[in-house]
């Protein structure tokens, strides 16, 4: 059969690959790595060490801070601010799910159906990045304004009665409620979901779909059994790229939220800049990091995908 002849060439090592490289050649990759490693050391490792140290210090601005291995700061921070932690994770999770629901069809469309419009649609996805994060978020204040058309329409359709009963909005407004914050998060992180989804969908060989059809799979079955499993790497990296920054975000909660929607990012900002309680701020950052690391680890293990891009 013709199809069989297209099988991959045998995987035997070739002579060129087994020959030991010269000495200078062996150092080259490390030298090339050097700028990256330095960058990581200065902008990642050093600040982390500094923060770790800060989190176990005690003192005040006047007297200075000393490392006293005061680990109780962690416990105090957690017992004081666990509601904000849970809220951040809940908002980030909601935004991630919404991003996936909105982003998957769009990525699918771009990958398989957009044809010659592919590049244009991709540019449209990325276009919002040309304006600043802050401006994009502020725009939502205009979109969701109390007297604006969106809220007016939602009100006349009685949607807000339902969301308000669920506790997502309050009264006949959307701004300064949890819904507004989640909408803001979803909007701001949507491209981070679409791009990896698109990359992994685009790699799927179209002939697999034809093959599934030849084997009498309905379109839905094809999607369920072929397309979706093959796009799992994109789903996993997309959700990570959305969830991780969203759970630490504070701009959306600050601008679109109210007192009862403050996220852990807002608490850290307040502790660090306003109350000047640097140890608590540092401890909160580490708790957030540890929490996300654990959740992401469990998630990746469970998702059962091997590739991440």
């Amino acid at each position: 059969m013709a199809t069989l002849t297209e099988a991959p060439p045998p995987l035997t090592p070739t002579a060129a690959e087994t020959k030991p490289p010269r000495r200078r050649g062996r150092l080259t990759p490390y030298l090339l790595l050097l700028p990256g490693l330095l960058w990581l050391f200065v902008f990642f490792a050093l600040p982390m060490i500094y923060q770790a140290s800060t989190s176990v210090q005690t003192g005040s601005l006047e007297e200075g801070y000393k490392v006293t291995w005061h680990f109780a700061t962690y416990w105090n921070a957690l017992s004081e601010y666990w509601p904000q932690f849970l809220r951040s994770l809940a908002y980030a999770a909601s935004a991630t799910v919404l991003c996936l629901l909105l982003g998957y069809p769009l990525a699918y469309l771009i990958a398989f159906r957009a044809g010659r419009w592919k590049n244009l649609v991709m540019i449209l996805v990325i276009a919002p990045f040309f304006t600043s994060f802050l401006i994009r978020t502020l725009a939502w204040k205009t979109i969701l304004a109390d007297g604006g058309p969106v809220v007016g329409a939602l009100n006349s359709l009685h949607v807000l009665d339902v969301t308000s009963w669920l506790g997502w909005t309050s009264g006949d407004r959307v701004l300064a409620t949890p819904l507004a914050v989640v909408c803001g998060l979803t909007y701001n992180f949507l491209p981070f979901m679409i791009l990896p989804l698109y990359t992994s969908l685009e790699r799927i060989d179209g002939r697999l779909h034809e093959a599934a059809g030849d084997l009498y799979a309905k379109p839905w079955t094809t999607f369920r059994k072929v397309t979706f499993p093959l796009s799992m790497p994109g789903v996993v990296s997309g959700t990570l790229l959305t969830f991780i920054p969203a759970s630490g975000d504070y701009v959306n909660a600050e601008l679109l939220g109210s007192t009862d929607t403050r996220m852990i990012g807002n608490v850290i900002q307040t502790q660090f800049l306003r109350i000047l309680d640097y140890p608590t701020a540092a401890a909160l950052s580490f708790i957030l990091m540890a929490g996300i690391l654990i959740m992401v680890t469990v998630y990746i293990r469970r998702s059962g995908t091997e590739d991440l891009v």
Partner: protein
Amino acid sequence: MEQYEPDRLSPAQMAAIRRSYRNGRAALTRRSLLRASAGGALTLGGLGALSACGIPAAGKTEGGTSAEDHSAKEKTVSFSNWTEYMDVDDSGRHHPTLEAFTERTGIKVKYTEDINDNNEFFGKIKPQLSAGQDTGRDIIVLTDWLAARLIRLGWVQKLDPSNLPHAYSNLSPQFRNPDWDPGRAYSYPWQGISTVIAYNKKALDGTEVKSVSDLLDNPRLKGRVGFLTEMRDTMGMTLLDMGKDPARFTDDDFDAAVARLQKGVDKGQIRRFTGNDYTSDLTKGDLAACLAWAGDVVQLKADSPDVDFVIPDSGYLTSSDNMCVPNKARHKTNAERLMDYYYEPPVAAQLAAYINYVCPVDGVKTELAKIDEDAASNPLIVPDKAMQAKSHAFRSLSAEEETAYETKFAKLTGA
């Protein structure tokens, strides 16, 4: 059937194919990420031990505060100010008062608008000042409480009165003796800021707002009331409304005021606590009424006719943004000359006509009237006797009080 015969592949292509069969084209796999994060955690643990040593604590500067004054040799001064806090000509590129200063004295002014927020700016200059280094700035403009904190920490220099003759004689009495800098030894006000109640007539729809009590209690304003994230402004106005003097209140008074605001938060009366962004909410009518800074209100009123303001009978809060010379500044004398220059009434009037804040210079009124009749008669820019009588200042706080109050206030605002 025609058979498909692939071209012979180069070793590099072969290697690429092999890699792609082993693991897709992705270099980053689940396993490698797990390994990497475990490795990262281990490294961190090991480095934790390092953290015991070698990280200097933030604290008071040791040793001298003044650097050698290079004013005579280097005819420059570096001035850091808030955004939109200086007169600009029609082209938007020149600052007429600054250029006139350079023309008269030969001192070039490096003017930077790099202050957006007191807390942020403090975070920015703290590392240098706590290490006793030059910040590269000769004049910085800080709101009362931050100026007070820097004076307390010994991070700003004492000014030389002999370089400040105009400032000394023209500073209006209202600003002369703050409890954190009596007699203005370390600072001179750039502009005064009044905190008042602003409202949107259309959004109020006939509801009358005259006091903080109206904001907190009128059910018709539910969810459309804003307070400020500046602790002193919000708490000061609430204290005044409860009959307490923000210049002399106790911990109990403070707690009572927090409880009163908390009730407003709990029943959904207060929509949110805002920084400067209340301006857009107010003009759109999402906020019907809120605490606001008078300088903004003058501007907003000019742009949107629905916005107006009211001074509560219980009084209002006035603070100021103050020019200070940070430690180790290279051009202290030049800085003092520039400060003094802005206390000459004609110059002050030129500035006041442009930026609409409370002018701290006595005798500016007649000069201002020559430029802008309306501004001169606006009590928000040049306070009359009745206005001055209602003005209150928030007392300075000790470091412990500041932490305690900010913590309580942060709880109130949700974090």
